[in-house]
């Protein structure tokens, strides 16, 4: 009797929390569509094409942070470190070796980001005891700050002035200058990185990360080496940041200490939280929103001076009132976190 009642109840309850219609694929598709037509719409406005290219490149940094925080629960306040160091390395390779071939320098930048993040992960994440969120946040912040200070006083790398006139990125004899060609190169790189991150998120490994984010201790009792998984994702995120840093350096023709410091690291946090962490597309849209606003408001002197304060208040507001970012208004928790088992369509098929 009781079990019959229980079955009836579960039947009713089962229907209650069916996932809502999926929104993210539409947002992703729409964003890609807009990105594809942007250079043609902007036409002669080369300054805006440059801005759009910059947004695509900084989106890599935002995705790098989302891999850490949104997917794996690692609070990194130092993603710009991997971005900046890789940017410096390819600028130095261009200056000292006069080499800037895309097929070698972009993988080199990825390797630099991967190796440096791997070193940080070994120190911060792979101790005998599981590190706290605060320990990792402060460790990455300190690394980012220390690197910025170190580079600021190092003449070989241009000290406080940074490295300018970075050699143009080449593919064979073709040189990528600012403009439509560089825009599409950045877009291709971003799409490839995005698809890779999406593949990771939707894989069985993504399920481990989703579980880790909710209850690390429980996963250790399942037999998962939680810190090793964290170190792996942190290193991959460093690789993505390194790739972004190289593109930034080539695109701007400049890399400076500020590109590896806490300022840019915090901006990456803002991109991600503003757009909606854990969704991958949210941080990209967050980057668009913050960078476009910064560009528009930079012409208004009164606002320009207090813009960092406004950004800080925006971050505070998002954390307090909309912690899932503006995409959280459209995307359900269920869709944001993901579903990893067989699909409902499988049930219907059988």
């Amino acid at each position, binding site marked *: 009797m009781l079990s019959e009642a229980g079955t009836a109840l579960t039947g009713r309850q089962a229907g209650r929390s069916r996932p809502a219609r999926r929104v993210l694929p539409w947002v992703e598709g729409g964003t890609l569509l807009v990105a594809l037509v942007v250079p043609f719409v902007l036409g002669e406005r080369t300054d805006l094409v440059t801005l759009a290219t910059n947004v695509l490149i900084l989106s890599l940094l935002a995705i790098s942070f989302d891999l850490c925080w949104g997917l794996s629960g690692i609070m990194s306040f130092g993603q710009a470190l991997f971005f900046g160091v890789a940017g410096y390395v390819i600028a130095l390779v261009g200056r000292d070796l006069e080499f800037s071939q895309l097929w070698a320098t972009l993988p080199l930048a990825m390797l630099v980001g991967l190796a440096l993040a791997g070193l940080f992960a070994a120190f911060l994440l792979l101790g005998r005891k599981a590190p706290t969120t605060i320990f990792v946040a402060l460790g990455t912040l300190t690394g980012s700050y220390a690197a910025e200070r170190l580079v600021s006083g190092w003449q070989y790398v241009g000290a406080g002035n940074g490295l300018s006139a970075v050699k143009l990125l080449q593919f064979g004899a073709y040189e990528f200058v600012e403009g439509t060609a560089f825009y599409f190169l950045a877009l291709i790189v971003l799409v490839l990185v995005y698809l890779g991150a999406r593949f990771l998120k939707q894989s069985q490994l993504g399920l481990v990360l989703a579980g880790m984010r*909710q209850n690390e201790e429980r996963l250790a009792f399942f037999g998962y080496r939680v810190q090793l998984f964290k170190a792996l994702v942190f290193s991959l995120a460093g690789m993505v940041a390194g790739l972004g840093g190289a593109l930034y350096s080539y695109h701007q023709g400049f890399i400076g200490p500020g590109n590896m410091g806490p300022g840019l690291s915090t901006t990456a946090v803002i991109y991600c939280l503003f757009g909606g962490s854990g969704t991958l597309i949210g941080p990209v849209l967050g980057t668009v929103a913050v960078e476009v606003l910064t560009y528009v408001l930079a012409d208004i002197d009164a606002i320009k001076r207090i813009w960092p304060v406004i950004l800080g208040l925006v971050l505070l507001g998002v954390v307090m009132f909309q912690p899932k970012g503006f995409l959280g208004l459209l995307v359900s928790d269920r869709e944001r976190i993901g579903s990893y088992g*067989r699909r409902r369509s499988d049930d219907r098929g059988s």
Partner: protein
Amino acid sequence: MALLQIRGVAKSFRTLRALDGVDVDVQAGTFHGLIGPNGSGKSTLLKAVAGAHFADGGTIVFDGHDITRATPYERARLGLSLKFQITAVLPELSVYDNVLLAIQSGESLTRLLLSSSRRALDGEVTALLERFRLIDRAHDLAGELSHGQTQWLEIAMALALRPKLLLLDEPTGGMSPEERRVTGTLLAPIKAHCTLVIVEHDLHFIRDICDHLTVLDQGRVLDHGDVETIQRSPKVQQVFTTRV
């Protein structure tokens, strides 16, 4: 040789001596109950075996391996699985994904990344969910389950690891009498392939499913033996009639 050998295990929390030189042997293929009044050290002992905290003294040997200082990860890899007293399902994941997460823990990193075993494990996940009467709720969030169903999900997750030794900390806590009865029938078939150590307050439940009992009182072993021996033990009767 016993599957689990606990020798002289001690554990203190500041001035409180929760375990004071506990010896327990658990034979393979048996259901072993740990009973005792509140604060007797049952859950502390279970956590020391699972690795939720380390014993201050003594040794714990599982399947021939000294696991006294092993991490939970290492213990899980040796075949130990724990169901927590306070349920620890992952509330934002579906019921199905909770079980899949447990069952895929033995997969390599590459196979996880390539999702190579998702289809292959589907049958196992479904079978467990059917066995624990959760199949109708497979796609619901684990956080939406009733208390009894959450306990079943926890047990299903612990069993998904295919453990040699399953540690259950109050599996029927907060359950209705009917749910307790069902839990007993759900656990009975695992005896063929899994040894069980269970902490439980419901003496009727534990009497019905266990072969062997160890009674703890104030961090020490008061008595141990089969169910009939313990039921007749004057020491145990005195503790349970005066302090429980």
